[in-house]
């Protein structure tokens, strides 16, 4: 796979995440009842950074959790080998809370479908919102994002690669060609 274009560099990613944090606070008129939940793997560092931005902005800590959606995938019986399962860690009960699900790229919507099923097994949130760094289109399910870092029209044969300093050593978003 070769790199076609850099969509975001470190500085622009930082600004996008900060803007997402502001939008989340605006939409909810504050941080009351808010829980940020990152979807493994790249949703975790993005979610953590959003939570940190909100905390700095509002001088109020925001609970942060991690959701592993592996067991809720709709392709589990058809793919091999079995994907690695890791724990889900939610900081507190999600009943009647406002859960902000965070992921890196919104594409077919199947990850978000799995995440919603996983989340509902932990309780009944008052509201669930979806925040993604990149929305690349090509949905296969009726799912949309509430907060978007950047919308990018793509071709189906392109791949969006989000690299995060915490996991990959560097912050950038690349568009790759198969």
């Amino acid at each position: 796979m070769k790199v076609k274009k850099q969509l975001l560099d470190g500085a622009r990613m930082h600004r996008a995440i900060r803007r997402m944090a502001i939008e989340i606070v605006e939409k909810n008129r504050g941080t009351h009842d808010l829980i940020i939940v990152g979807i493994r793997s790249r949703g975790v560092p993005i979610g953590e950074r959003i939570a940190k931005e909100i905390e700095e902005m509002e001088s109020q800590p925001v609970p942060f959790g991690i959701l592993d959606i592996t067991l809720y995938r709709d392709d589990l019986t058809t793919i091999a080998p079995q994907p690695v399962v890791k724990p889900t860690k939610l900081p507190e009960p999600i009943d009647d809370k406002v859960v902000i699900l965070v992921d890196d790229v919104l594409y077919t919507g199947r990850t978000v479908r799995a995440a919603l099923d996983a989340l509902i097994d932990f309780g009944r949130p008052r509201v669930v919102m979806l925040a993604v760094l990149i929305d690349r289109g090509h949905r296969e399910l009726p799912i949309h994002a509430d907060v978007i870092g950047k919308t990018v029209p793509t071709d189906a044969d392109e791949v969006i690669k989000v690299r995060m300093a915490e996991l990959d050593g560097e912050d950038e978003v690349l568009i790759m060609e198969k």
Partner: protein
Amino acid sequence: MRQTTSSLKSKDLLGIEPLTPEEITLILDTAEGFKEVSERPVKKVPALRGQLVINLFMEASTRTRVSFEIAEKRLSADTLNFAASGSSVEKGETLIDTAENLMAMHPDMIVIRHKHPGAPKMLADRLPASIINAGDGAHEHPTQALLDAFTIRERLGRLHGVNVSIVGDIAHSRVVRSNIHLLTRMKANVTVAGPPTLIPAEIERLGVRVAHSLDEAIDGADVIMMLRIQLERQGKLTFPSLREYYNTFGLTPARLRRAKEGILVMHPGPMNRGVEIASDVADGPWSVILDQVTNGVAVRMAVLYLLGGAHAE
């Protein structure tokens, strides 16, 4: 990441002996992910939805059967329990015929306990379903060894270099055999102890040390595993009396006073209180016996999950 592999090579889990250290680590790491499922308000995930698991228990079992059944249900598999008593087995049907008849109903996995060593292997060679050994005679009980290892790793953070002493009926125990394979493969140091009549000759060839008294086994141990004296399996007693066994090999608070700080006391259950273990020890601060039971479900979920998906060709 600790993992260097992401799948098991075999369609079956027949024992620990055929597993590589990477496969053992994969199962234990996966079990960590599953432990949290049992603590949720909705203790169920859809991973094995639509798969049929048959529990074929041809020998008495409470803990293992219940643990497997809970693990299967938490993964959303359909389960069917088949016990020898009250079944066609009492009418003289052979194991192969029983299994082939069950197979005609298209199970995806069969969990089997049988008094004859090798029974799971016999099914694995003949049936397309994944076979999980839940104890076969004195051969192996792999999920018990995995849950023991999971418990040790959870408490001590590692298996490498941990000193584990196993005390009791070493000769008749499938739990010991699976544990020796697993612990030596993961580079733990294993010591066994028990009455000389219950220590097999040349057991050292499996890479373990033989201690000649309980005190010697306790000395320097990080973990002490007490085995049940299996009266039903021996036919006759191989030591003079239960009282004498307790006095010689029973684990008591007084004995534990010589132990290393933080020693873990384990027991695969069911316990004979006052034979191999004193009540004060079983219920005491050293004991992780109930952790073992809790972890058993997570470990069995991991095994079912790893064997339950599509198989790489």
